[in-house]
């Protein structure tokens, strides 16, 4: 059991270290331009400075908070819309293609429209993140419900379950793993767009910091800020994973 948990973690850490060492070597040997990609050792050295001088913790929590609100909206609205489209076949036939098309639309470019509606505030960032993350949550929710094995539905029917009980006791738990895939994809899309809009409108958390540091041509600092964006993503993946394991312990 311990071996099963330690080995993947050790392999992951080893691969990451090897990648960093290879990048360091390639840059030092001149294969990669150090004015475009800084040395990993320089990035490591810049951590303390950026954390102390750039209010990284506050920015981290601001970006994470925006991603959290967008994620909660995605969960409430995305899953509800997915369930509605699953239930109403006509609505699904009418909308599914549009929703799929929306998934590939560069919603971030619509930021002026959102600025007009929500002003230069965190809500603009949250709503763009939410809109960008919505299609995968809706589509995966539909897929999860539609993919529930008919025999499980029949078991429910044989026990005289009401439609509500059928949904809560069978359809929803059966669809949960697929819904969580959608939520994770939605959160990725949301986070990319949140950081992107912070960068574009120069407002808020880590995206604004990346913008500032890039304009100052502080490449190691920029990469440190990017590392914190990755940390937000890691935190959300870990949290969603724990919630999923709590809801579906058998997985």
């Amino acid at each position: 059991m311990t071996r099963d948990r330690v080995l993947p973690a050790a392999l992951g850490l080893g691969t990451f270290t090897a990648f960093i060492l290879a990048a360091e070597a390639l840059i030092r040997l001149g294969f990669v331009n150090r004015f475009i990609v800084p040395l990993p050792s320089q990035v490591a050295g810049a951590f303390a400075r950026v954390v102390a001088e750039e209010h990284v913790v506050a920015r981290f929590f601001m970006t994470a908070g925006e991603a959290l609100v967008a994620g909660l909206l995605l969960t409430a609205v995305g899953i509800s819309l997915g369930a509605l489209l699953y239930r109403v076949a006509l609505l699904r036939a009418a909308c599914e293609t549009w929703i799929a098309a929306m998934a590939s639309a560069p919603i971030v470019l619509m930021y002026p429209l959102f600025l007009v509606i929500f002003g230069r505030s965190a809500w603009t960032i949250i709503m763009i993140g939410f809109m960008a993350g919505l299609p995968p949550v809706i589509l995966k929710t539909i897929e999860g419900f539609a993919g529930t094995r008919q025999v499980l539905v029949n078991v429910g029917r044989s026990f005289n379950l009401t439609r509500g009980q059928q949904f809560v006791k069978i359809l929803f738990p059966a669809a949960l793993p697929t819904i969580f895939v959608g939520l994770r994809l939605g959160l990725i899309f949301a986070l990319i767009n949140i950081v992107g809009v912070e960068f574009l409108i120069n407002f808020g958390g880590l995206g604004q910091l990346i913008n500032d540091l890039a304009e100052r041509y502080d490449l190691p600092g920029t990469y440190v800020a990017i590392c914190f964006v990755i940390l937000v993503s890691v935190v959300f993946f870990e949290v969603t994973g724990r919630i999923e394991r709590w809801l579906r312990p058998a997985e």
Partner: protein
Amino acid sequence: MIANAAGKLPTVAPQTSESRALRAEGITKHYTTSEGTITAVDSVSLDVAPGEFLAVIGPSGCGKSTLFNIIGGLVDGYEGRVSVAGETVAGPHASIGMVFQEESTFPWRTVVENVAFPLEIARVSRAERLERARHFISLVGLEGFERRYPAELSGGMRQRVAIARTLAFEPKILLMDEPFAALDEQTRLLLGDKVLQIQQQLKQTTLLITHNITEAVQLADRILVMTYRPGRVKRFVKIDLPRPRSSEIVSSEAFGRYVAKIWSDLREEASRGMQDEETCKRQSGGDGA
């Protein structure tokens, strides 16, 4: 005792109305497909007495599963009438519990939570439903596996969980649609023993759908042999083998005679089915030619 059954195989006379736990009268079901209307079952009538074990056997495509779904109330739009103790069944009925051919345990619930499921729906208190669920788990021989998830069990164990879950519903009639179809022969025979034990212990009225002759003869009091499409009643055969039975009975002479008799009825139907399938494949160019 087995020698008593060595003579003629009796055909069963219709039962009186008061002795019927389950009755299906003139069941006919048509399906509309792109190739026209297909009659899955045609004028099928059967009675099951309280505590009786009736097996329905027929070749693939004879409408056995359609009949199972109609009696279980999962299919509508059929002709005829299904009644439980004289009450007409329209939709799933509280007196009928169903065990399905496919793996049907809930993977997100433990064994005890799976078995307690119908009691949870019936709003039985948690303590009581867990206690009752443990009773049925013990009945199917799965003590010690209460906290396991279905993914941690074998196919045979999962099917026993499904049977226990249906029994926990305490149905008057147990419907089973080829519950052992996905299992290997040894597991099938041993699980057959377990089902027989439970059926005898609970005096459970049971209707088993199967295509396995050995299984039907091992378990049933009577066997309804169905024709190939459209599924009609070909014959009822009473199985006069002594009870309690176990899988050891399959090696007896009388058992072999019943199997041979039912196979002679089925062979013609199965051949028709095979020819029909070959014709369809040829017509659709699916014969690899």
